């Protein structure tokens, strides 16, 4: 039984839905995408453009279904983008234009 409390959806300790889920203990190599997102977040943190706390907040803001559907580093990328937009480091117009070009 879950504790009957207003839990945020990322706050997963003891959540019943996962208690019978097996753990995939096998090795899973990181992809180039994974490493580049990880590296990008590191650069932004070192330059004090984004804190780990801000990145976590952005991840926690992902709606529940998406949070569980997205891979780990796709959550990071969504949060990094969210934070860059919030801080005005990039604008939505700039991002839409850049997306057209990739």
């Amino acid at each position, binding site marked *: 039984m879950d504790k009957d409390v207003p839990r945020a959806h990322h*706050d997963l300790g003891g959540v019943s*839905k996962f208690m019978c889920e097996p753990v995939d203990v096998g090795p899973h190599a990181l992809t180039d995408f994974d490493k580049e997102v990880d590296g990008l977040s590191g650069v932004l943190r070192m330059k004090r453009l984004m804190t780990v706390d801000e990145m976590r907040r952005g991840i926690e803001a992902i709606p529940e279904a998406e949070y569980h559907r997205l891979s780990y580093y796709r959550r990071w990328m969504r949060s990094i983008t969210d934070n860059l937009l919030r801080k005005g480091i990039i604008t939505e117009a700039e991002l839409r234009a850049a*997306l057209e070009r990739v």
Partner: protein
Amino acid sequence: MNILETDGEKLLAAVRDLLAAKGIASSAEISERIAITDAANPGQGARMVAKAWTDPAYRTLMLEDGTKAAEELGIPMRGSAPLGVLENTADVHHLVVCTLCSCYPRAVLGYPPFWFKSAAYRARGVRDPRGLIAEWGTVLPEGVKIRVVDSTADYRWMVLPLRPPGTDGWDETRLTSVVREGDMIGVTIPRI
């Protein structure tokens, strides 16, 4: 459509282009960051453990100031979160988890493994630790208590596991080869 719902690979490419054009983050800087993170690996932690098993003064340092102990072995820790080390004893076995996200002692051990970041691990660790470590075939000896460490804040935690029997007289290098990634998180116990 909410722009944040764009495919992650496209977002990465677009964001990288924009940040490079603005002089905020270049490809070279990102590559350098990747190289630094790639250099960290479980072997670094294994060296710390092997030294703690053979050198009582280093063991004391590792338990009091994990960051300093890591730096003493040439492991770069500047800019990283403080490292906390939890000592397994004959009575207590530690298991590290981050229920809220995936906080992991990356500076020492490198990227966290897939399983550590999974919802199943994050949910089960604090509530059914014995069932969880059984996924690795780990069963604790009779009478040993388990202490689950939920990494919720500024520290990153790793376990100093028990030295396995049958290793008397082994030197540090040989002992290092015994210590696996899972031993320093608590899902496995070192054995020869």
